[in-house]
């Protein structure tokens, strides 16, 4: 339960959600995340620390780098999954509208 609560605290910050979404695409190092998002490297590290404490991401050493990935047992994946689901469903809705308009 402590995990679920800290997960929601962690997800209340939009930048952390943005970081999770990037990590859902593929595992990334701190530097890569800082390049992809409008946020400094130290800020990314700080966000990752919160996400890790909430079991939303996990870190793994790859050579000299630490690579972060989303933790499938955490809560972030549920939100990301729902987000992708609705993205797809709404696109299908828009297609159906276009199709009906053509008829």
């Amino acid at each position, binding site marked *: 339960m402590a995990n679920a*609560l800290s997960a929601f605290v962690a997800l*209340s910050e939009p930048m952390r959600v943005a970081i999770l979404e990037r990590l859902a695409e*593929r595992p990334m190092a701190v530097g890569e995340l800082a390049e992809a998002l409008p946020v400094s490297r130290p800020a990314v590290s700080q966000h990752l620390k919160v996400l890790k404490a909430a079991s939303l991401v996990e870190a793994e050493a790859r050579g000299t780098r630490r690579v972060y990935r*989303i933790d499938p047992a955490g809560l972030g994946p549920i*939100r990301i999954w729902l987000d992708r689901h*609705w993205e797809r*469903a*709404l696109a299908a809705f828009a297609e159906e509208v276009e199709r009906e308009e053509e008829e």
Partner: protein
Amino acid sequence: MNATRTITAAPIRKSLRVRTPQEKAFRIFLGGMGRWWPKDHSLLETPQRDVVIEPRAGGRWYEIGEDGAEYEWGKVLEYDAPNRALLAWQLNAEWRFDPDFETEVEIVFKADGDETIVEFEHRKLEAYGRTDRSGQTLMDMDKGWGAILERYVEEASRQD
């Protein structure tokens, strides 16, 4: 745990513009969900035949299979055609309908000339943090969301 603490999860928000008048956009979304819903997102054992949203507050939201079986997804909280609908999505972290579990899906339709802007929001996601009765719901990787998410994560990782 501090029970008075407010926990929030960022809502999922989407906005899209469709090239059809507001009334028709509403009708296709709410009244014709079965025509556009991704068919693989079904909880039925036979292929999905339709998705039904009963057009009134208190109405049911469910899917129907080819064999006639029904699977409850939630209910209608507010129904204000052709402007807005508020639905309760009541599938918990294990993909089971739970009348005590409630997240909100709000869809707002705004006319913009002959087109319509559709604003979508899925909120109160913090409910997923409250379904943890056994201490394992969200952590159980062997079934429901867990298994689906695990496949999703594997797929996402493979693109590395």
